[in-house]
Structures are given as C-alpha cells and as structure tokens.
C-alpha cells in the first residue's frame, strides 16, 4: 500500500521558466536512466528474494524513487509554467507541445517514450543487484554532467 504525503521530498520553487532546460530535465522523468525506470526497477525486483534486509532496502529505495519522480515532474512543470507560444517555438519546445501541451509525459530528452526495457527483473537477486549497481552508476554520471 502506498499513502500519498502532500509534500515533495525536496522542495522545488522555480521562479523563472526555461523551456529549453525542461526538455533536458524530462529525461530524468521517463528517460533510460530516469526515476520512472528506477522506481519500477526496485519495486519490481523485491519479490525475487527472501532476504529480509534486501526486501526492506528495495522497498524503501523504490518508494524514495517515486518521490524523486514527483520532484522531477515538478521541476518540468514549473520550468514550463505559463509559457507563451513565442517562447515555446523559440526554445524548440513546440515538438513536445504538439502532443502533450504543458502536461508531464514520461519520455527521454530525444522524445523516446518511457520503456520498461530500460531495466531488468531477472528473478535472481544477485543478477538484479548487479543491474542496480550499473543503473545507479549511470544515473550518477548523468547528474554530474
């Protein structure tokens, strides 16, 4: 069971819109190393083990990733709030806008929709934990760029 708490894990209050930046940030929502893949990865992998510490840690990390997903969506939402048509066209946001207007849709920066093939659940916890370490390294690399 999940209970929604009406707050972000980390507050977001963006004063200036930036549609160009939003097009990059959206990848952290639904891209190959994004939070949607991360949350689904950990929450789906936890059924494959009987080790209670691993069940707990995958549950808690997967839940936290859902919190991150909401933070990223909020960033994109606030970066694109109240944009004018001129700003949308000038920033290149018009391609996204055609299909989703100012809604939040899980895609990579290049427009590729979110795909469960971005992560794996093998039913073997050691295999899955190796996949988790690779995913975590990929995400860290993105954040440092």
């Amino acid at each position, binding site marked *: 069971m999940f209970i929604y708490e*009406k707050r*972000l*894990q980390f507050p*977001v*209050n963006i004063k200036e819109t930036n549609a160009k930046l939003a097009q990059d940030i959206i990848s952290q929502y639904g891209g190959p190393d994004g939070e949607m893949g991360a949350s689904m990865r950990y929450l789906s992998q936890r059924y494959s083990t009987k080790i209670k510490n691993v069940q707990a840690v995958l549950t808690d990390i997967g839940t936290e990733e859902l919190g991150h997903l909401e933070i990223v969506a909020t960033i994109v*939402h*606030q970066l694109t*709030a109240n944009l004018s048509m001129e700003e949308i066209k000038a920033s290149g946001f018009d391609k996204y806008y055609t299909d989703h207007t100012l809604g939040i849709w899980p895609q990579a920066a290049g427009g590729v929709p979110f795909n469960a093939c971005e992560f794996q659940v093998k039913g073997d916890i050691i295999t899955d934990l190796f996949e988790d370490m690779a995913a975590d390294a990929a995400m860290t690399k993105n954040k440092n760029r």
Partner: protein
Amino acid sequence: MNKMNQQQLLHFITEVSFALDDIALYLDTHPKCQQGLACYENYKSMRTQAVKDYTTLYGPLNRYQVNDCNYFDWVNKPWPWERECDC
C-alpha cells in the same frame, strides 16, 4: 515550533523526513545498530510533533489526517508541485 509559519513548518518536516529516509536505508541493512536506532528515534520524535502541529494548524499531509467534519480539506491547497507564487 509553533512560531513557524506554514511554509517554515513544512520545510522543517521535509528536513527531518529527509534525515529519516536516509537513516532508514542504513538501518535496513544494519537493523541492530544502536547508534543508528537512537538517531532514527530522535528525528522520528521531532517529525511526529511537527506533523501533529502542522495538521492541527494547516490541514492534512496525508488522507488519513483529514479531521474537518464539514469539508474534505484534503482537496485544499497547497499541492506540492505548485509554485508558491501561484497559490
């Protein structure tokens, strides 16, 4: 505690919750660590009081905390994705 306004109190809840999120991950793999448990308990008690103050003054943070008999105040602002200037 009760000298904080709504935004400050929510910020405080966010800070102590963040600490709890991190300590919990450590305790998941070190559930017997007394130092970790004491740390968790410390932040937990701060959070419990702050959430109690917040929900009394400003309304529910989760749906089970709705306590207005005349109005489902869960629907009230602020929602966390809204900018403060839009509220």
